[in-house]
C-alpha cells in the first residue's frame, strides 16, 4: 500500500474507489473503517462483479464482467482526458510515458468499454468524474485485480489512473493493494522470491549478489530461480527433483489441484513443515512439525508496511520445534555454519542487509514504536506514505496496458463464468479457523452463488445440490440463489475441502508476475 489504512479512511477523504475487493469479508476491520467513512459522508465507488454488501452504500456500483479491469481503467482514463480532468502539472513534472498512454486509451470510448465490461456508459462517466474531481480519493484493490491472467496489467492500469489525476504521493490517496495473507508483504520483503534477495535487491544485480555473498560468506548462485506457479512445469520436465514446503497447503489453495498433485507426486523428495496433516503433507516423504505464531517470537509486516511484533504466548512441549531452529539444524548439517540467532538477532542481520529496514530493531518495537518500512535510521519512524514528492524510481512511469480477454471464457459447453473469493469467517485454506468451534459451525461447507434467472432456467432451487464442472474437474456443492452475481456468472469461495473450487480453476499464468488465474474460469452446472 502506498498509504496507511487510517489515512485512506480519514474523515477528509471524499471518495473511496474499491476495485475487486471485498474488505468487509476479507479484511473486516478495514471494512469497519470504510463503513464509518461512508457514514460520515465519504462517497464510495465499488467496482466488483458481485453485489458485495458495501455496494449497497455505494454512490456508484460498476458490476464489471469478471476479468475486464484493464478495459475499465482505460475507459476511466479516456473519459478523464476527454473531459480535461487530468492533473497536467503532475503529469508534466512527475511522470513519463504519458503520450503513449494517451494513444492507447484513445480507443477505449465509454461506449466500447461499457460493452466489454457489461456496464452502463453513463455510470462509467459518473465514476470517472467523481474520482477525478475528488480532492482526496484512494484506490483500494485486492485479489480481484491481481488474480487474473492479466493481473499485472490490471494493477498497472490502476496506477496509471491514479497518476493521471495526481492522486498518489499524498495523504488520502494512492493505490492500495490490500494483501491477502497476514504476512505476504513480509515474505516478499524478506526475499522469498526467486529473483530477489531480501529488500527486493535483485539476484541479477551484480553488486547485490556480491554484497550477499560476502555477508553470508559463500559464493551465491547468480541464476534467477523458478516461481511457484512455474514449478509444476519444472517438475514435469525433470528440472526440479526435491521440494521443501514450509507451512503452505498448495493442495488446497492453489488453482487446478489435479496439476499440483501431479507435481507433488512427480518429485523424488518432498519435505513439508506444517502444524497439521494437510492434504499436501499427506504426499510428503518427510513431515516436520513446526509451531504456530503463538509459540514464537518474531514480526509480521501488514499491508501498510508496518512491522509489528509477534510474541510467544505458550510453549507446548509436545515434540514440535520452532521453525527457525529446524532451519538452523539443516543449514549446519549441510555444512553451512549458521549461528543460532534469536528472532531479535535475525532482525539485526536483516537491518544490516536491507537499507529500508536499517532503523528497525526489537528494542524500538518493544518500546511501543510503530514503524513502517522504509525506515532508514534509528530516528526515522518510517515512511507511512510512499512516493511523496518523488517516485521511488524517480519519475512515475505510465505502463500502458491493453485489455485482453481472460484466458478461458464461457462457451457452449461451459456456459458460465465462475469467479472465486474469500468469506468473512474463514481464512484461506482455513487450517486455523476450521479448528474453532463456532466458526466452523457458522459455515462449514462450500456453496455457489448464482443468479435467480439462471437457476430458474436450470430448474435449480436455493439450497439444491449442484454439480459444477470445468475443463479440469468436477465438484458438488450447494446452490445459493439470489442476485448477488450477474446473469451468466457464478461465485464460489475457496475455503472448503468439500467441493473445493480449486479443482475447477485455471492455472493459466499472468505473463509478468506468474499469478495463476484464480478468479475466472468457465463452468457448466447441473442439478446433482
Amino acid at each position, binding site marked *: 500500500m502506498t498509504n496507511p489504512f487510517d489515512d485512506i479512511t480519514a474523515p477528509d477523504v471524499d471518495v473511496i474507489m474499491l476495485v475487486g475487493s471485498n474488505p468487509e469479508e476479507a479484511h473486516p476491520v478495514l471494512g469497519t473503517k470504510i463503513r464509518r467513512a461512508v457514514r460520515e459522508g465519504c462517497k464510495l465507488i465499488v467496482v466488483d462483479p458481485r453485489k458485495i454488501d458495501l455496494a449497497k452504500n455505494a454512490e456508484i456500483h460498476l458490476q464489471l464482467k469478471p476479468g475486464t479491469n484493464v478495459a475499465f481503467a482505460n475507459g476511466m482514463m479516456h473519459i478523464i482526458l476527454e473531459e480535461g480532468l487530468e492533473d497536467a502539472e503532475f503529469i508534466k513534472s512527475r511522470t513519463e510515458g504519458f503520450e503513449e498512454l494517451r494513444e492507447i486509451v484513445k480507443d477505449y470510448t465509454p461506449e466500447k468499454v461499457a460493452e466489454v465490461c457489461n456496464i452502463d456508459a453513463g455510470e462509467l462517466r459518473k465514476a470517472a468524474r467523481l474520482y477525478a474531481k475528488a480532492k482526496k480519493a484512494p484506490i483500494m484493490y485486492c485479489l480481484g485485480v491481481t488474480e487474473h491472467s492479466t493481473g499485472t496489467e490490471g494493477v498497472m492500469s490502476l496506477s496509471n489512473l491514479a497518476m493521471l489525476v495526481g492522486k498518489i504521493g499524498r495523504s488520502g490517496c494512492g493505490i492500495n493493494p490490500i494483501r491477502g*495473507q497476514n504476512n505476504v508483504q513480509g*515474505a516478499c520483503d524478506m526475499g522469498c522470491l526467486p529473483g530477489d534477495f531480501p529488500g527486493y535487491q535483485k539476484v541479477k544485480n551484480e553488486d547485490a549478489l556480491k554484497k550477499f555473498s560476502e555477508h553470508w560468506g559463500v559464493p551465491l548462485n547468480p541464476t534467477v530461480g*523458478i516461481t511457484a506457479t512455474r514449478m509444476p512445469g519444472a517438475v514435469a520436465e525433470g528440472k526440479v527433483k526435491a521440494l521443501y514446503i514450509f507451512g503452505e497447503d498448495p493442495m488446497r489453495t492453489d488453482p487446478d489441484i489435479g496439476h499440483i498433485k501431479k507435481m507433488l507426486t512427480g518429485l523424488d523428495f518432498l519435505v513439508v513443515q506444517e502444524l497439521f496433516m494437510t492434504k499436501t503433507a499427506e504426499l*510428503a516423504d518427510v513431515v516436520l512439525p513446526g509451531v504456530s505464531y503463538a509459540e514464537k517470537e518474531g514480526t509480521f509486516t501488514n499491508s501498510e508496511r508496518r512491522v509489528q511484533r509477534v510474541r510467544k504466548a505458550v510453549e507446548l512441549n509436545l515434540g514440535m520445534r520452532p521453525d527457525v531452529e529446524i532451519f538452523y539444524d539443516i543449514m549446519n548439517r549441510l555444512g553451512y555454519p549458521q549461528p543460532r540467532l534469536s528472532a531479535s538477532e535475525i532482525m539485526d542481520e536483516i537491518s544490516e542487509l536491507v537499507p529500508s529496514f536499517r532503523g528497525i530493531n526489537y528494542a524500538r518495537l518493544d518500546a511501543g514504536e510503530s514503524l513502517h518500512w522504509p525506515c532508514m535510521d534509528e530516528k526515522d519512524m518510517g515512511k507511512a506514505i510512499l512516493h511523496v514528492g518523488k517516485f521511488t524510481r524517480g519519475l512515475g512511469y505510465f505502463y500502458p496496458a491493453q485489455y485482453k480477454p481472460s484466458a478461458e471464457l464461457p462457451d457452449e459447453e461451459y456456459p458460465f463464468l465462475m469467479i472465486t473469493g474469500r468469506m468473512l469467517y474463514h481464512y484461506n485454506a482455513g487450517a486455523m479457523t476450521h479448528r*474453532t468451534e463456532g466458526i466452523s459451525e457458522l459455515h462449514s461447507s462450500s456453496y455457489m452463488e448464482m443468479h435467480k434467472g439462471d437457476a430458474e432456467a436450470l430448474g435449480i432451487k436455493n439450497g439444491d445440490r449442484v454439480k459444477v464442472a470445468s475443463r479440469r474437474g468436477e465438484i458438488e456443492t450447494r446452490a445459493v440463489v439470489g442476485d448477488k452475481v450477474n446473469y451468466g456468472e457464478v461465485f464460489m469461495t475457496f475455503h472448503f475441502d468439500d467441493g473445493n473450487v480449486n479443482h475447477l480453476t485455471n492455472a493459466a499464468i499472468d505473463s509478468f508476475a506468474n499469478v495463476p488465474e484464480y478468479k475466472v474460469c468457465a463452468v457448466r452446472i447441473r442439478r446433482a
Partner: protein
Amino acid sequence: MVTDSAIKTVTLTIDNKSCTVPKGTTILKAAQSIGIDIPTLCYMKELVPDGSCRICVVEIEGGRKGGLVPSCAEHCAEGMVVYTRSQRVVEARKFILDLLLSDHTLECFSCARNGSCKLQEYCLEYGVERTSFRIGKRTPFGKGDTSNRFFEFRPDKCIMCRRCAHVCEKLQGRDVLSIAGRGFDTHISTCYDIARTDPTCESCGNCVSACPTGALSSYDQKRNYRSYEVTSTQTTCPHCAVGCQFNLLTKNGKIVGADPVDGPTNKGLLCVKGKYGSYKFVHSGDRLTTPLIKKDGKFEPATWEEALGLIVNKLTQIKKKEGADAIAGFSCSRSTNEDNYMFQKMMRAAIGTNNVDNCARV
C-alpha cells in the same frame, strides 16, 4: 479543528492541583492528564460522550445545579475549581451504584466478568455491598439472549450504559443493537429483535469487549477463565494483513482467549477471526508433534535425528547429482519475517539455489 480554540488554553485546579489544558478539553481528560482517576461507565474515548451513567460526576465550586456535573461531558473553564472526590461526589456515586444494583443480578461468584467488572470494582471501592432499594420491578433473572455462538447477553446484568450499542453502530458500523422500550422497560435489544447472528451481526465481539459488566460475556471466558487468572501477551493477528493487535490470554500453559488492544490499525477493534478464531487451533488435538517419515506409503513417527539426517542426505545427493537448482522451496506467507528470512537464506546460502518463492501470488 486546529483553529484558535485549540491554541487557547485554560487553567483550572482539580483536587487542589493546578492544570493547564487546551480550551475545549473535558474535565475528565484534564484530570487524566495530571494522573487523577475518575470512574466512568458509559464513556468511550473514541466517541462523543454519551453522558448517561453519571458515575463520573465531579463537583465544581459555585457551579450551577449544586455544582455536580458529569466530567466526561463538561468542558474546563478558566479558573474552575473542581473536586473529584468531595463528600457530595462520593455520596452521589454511591447513590448511582445503589440504583444500578437495584436491578442487577448479583452473582459475582459465578459471573464471567468476576474481577474485570467495572460495576463490581466501583461498588467495592465505594463500599456499596447491596442495594438499599427493596421494592420495585426487576429484570427477570437469568433469561438471556443466547442466539450468538460466541457470547451471551444477560439483561439482568445490564446497566444500560449503551457502550455495546455505540460500538456496534459507530465503530463497527453494524447497527445490530439499539435501545428499546421506555422507562423501566428500557433495554438493549437487537433491532427488530433479530438474532445476534449472521448476516447482520458479524460476531466480532467488539460489543463484548466494550461491556463493563457481565451482561455481555464470551462463553470461553465464562467457562474457562477469569481475568485475574490469565497472563496477557500482546501480539499480531495471524489471519489477515490488517495487522490488528490483541492480547493472547494464557492460563496454565494454555491460550484461553484473545482481547483487543488499542493497536495502530485496529484501535481496539477486532473481527470474529481475531477475537474468536486465533487461539483454539493452537491447542487442537490434531497438531503434528513428531517428525514423520514415509515408509512403503505409510507415515511412521521418527526422531528429529532420523528425519533431519534423511533430509540432509537426500538433499546432498540430489545436489551432487543434479545440481542445487534441482531443489526448490516454498516459504510461508503466514509465518514471521524472521522465519522467512532464514528460509530463503537456507535455500540460497546453504543449498545454493534461488528457487524460493512464497504464496504471495496465490
